[in-house]
């Protein structure tokens, strides 16, 4: 059932999130958000042959944050790293059947969290970080959203 505020898709992912929980020994972790502003998202990835072989999340937040995390893991799983980075907040919100305006930032957080996880993977492997991704990471650090 849809809730007046949220689409049916959001409520489905909120009630039964996909790929929920911590990952042991991940290849990369992205930590986004802070408790003061509301939501905190951690995305864990396992990378095989430049693809996201497995992905999991932990989120403290509202229904939109949890649903955004969940749909993100669905969309990212199996994608190449280059492909995964291209997942946008708009794409996430779209897949969720839309988000209320005051909640759009949740999908931004989710997309950023994945980007951070991939950044972390590159860093751990000492691989060169694509320019765009480095910039994105620097901005997030600056704004205090990445941890």
């Amino acid at each position, binding site marked *: 059932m849809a809730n007046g505020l949220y689409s049916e898709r959001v409520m489905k992912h909120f009630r039964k999130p996909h790929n929920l929980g911590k990952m042991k020994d991940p290849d990369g972790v992205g930590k986004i958000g802070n408790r003061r502003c509301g939501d*905190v998202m951690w995305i864990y990835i396992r990378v095989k042959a430049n693809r996201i072989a497995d992905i999991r999340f932990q989120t*403290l937040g*509202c229904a939109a944050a949890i649903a955004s995390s969940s749909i993100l893991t669905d969309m990212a799983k199996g994608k190449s790293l280059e492909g995964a980075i291209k997942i946008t907040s708009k794409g996430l919100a779209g897949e969720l059947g839309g988000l209320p305006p005051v909640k759009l930032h949740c999908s931004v957080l989710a997309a950023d969290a994945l980007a951070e996880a991939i950044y972390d993977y590159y860093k751990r492997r000492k691989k060169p970080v694509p320019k765009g991704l480095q910039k994105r990471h620097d901005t997030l650090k600056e704004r205090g959203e990445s941890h």
Partner: protein
Amino acid sequence: MIYLDHAATTPVAKEVLKAMEPYFSQMYGNASSLHSPGQEARKAMEEARESVAKLINADPDEIVFTSGGTESDNLAINGAGFHVFARFRKEGKKPHIITSRIEHPAILETCRHLEGIGFEVTYLKVDKEGMVDPKELEKAIKKTTILASIMHANNEIGTIEPIGEIAKVCRKHLVLFHTDAVQTFGKLPIDVKKLGIDLLSASGHKLYGPKGVGCLYVRRGVKLAPQAHGGGHEKGIRSGTENIAGIVGFGKACELAMGDMKKESSRLENLRKRLVREVLKMPNSRLNGHPTKRLPGNANFTFDFIEGESLLLRLDSRGIAASTGSACSTKKLAPSHVLTAIGLKVEETHGSLRLTLGRQTKGKDIDFTIKAIREEVEALRKMSPLKR
């Protein structure tokens, strides 16, 4: 559905609906009309006015019917403010209003608006339990103070303010005293004469009456600038064709409240105590508001490591209707001004849940709710990256 959001609104009582029903399609006259259907409507309205007045020991002609608590609050603040505004301005002075930081937005936003047009407002601090200190209020009074507005009980955390003492302070300094009693009207005993209250707001839908009707008690002799201009209804203070069915329902709701107030409030208090005791057994959970001086049916918790909205929606899936704070602010992302005022850190305000019990709440509903809260808080904490 186990409805635990009675502070947001209540169902219309069966007896109330029954009392209202004839006034829709049968006795539908306009109370201003001279013919029999009109006079019949007027009579019903005046009888309702008596029931409303009686509940707070007011005289019927001191009751002004409005469209609800928000309008009553606006009328009290603006009405008292604009009654003196022109005179103050001529003398080059700003009328001064005292209120608290934990008032309902209907008071706070009205005050902020008045600040923008030449009033001065003091927003009193409250302590960790949400109490206004009458001594602080007295200190804030100056020569230009015209009005103090302190709510009877807070809608989020349930804390009951010492309005008797505050009223005394106000009377001593010849300052008008308004109290927003929307959450206590019909739930706690109120005697406006004994307490020395000048203005008091109430709303029908909070006490098992209909939405869209409320009242402002205006002590005889207190002058307000009218806020709705028109046909001169309600002694010229509040024009507009009177909502007879709504008013009759409000009157009936007051009668019912008179009857069961004592018994019901101790019943609710017992249920709430059980709820609080059991829920607080969970680690990292706290009660907000005053431990004892609080609305009988109000429990407001903070749970660490979770988001209130998520808890609310998961409880909703299990058939429990709760709230994260006041109903009116769910659309905003800003943390609750009440929780912030009692000293919660912003991150703590996000994890709050308000349960407000009411007439149809049974013991087994409370048991079910305790279990559901435990399980859902657990489940959400498991999702959280911060809880270890």
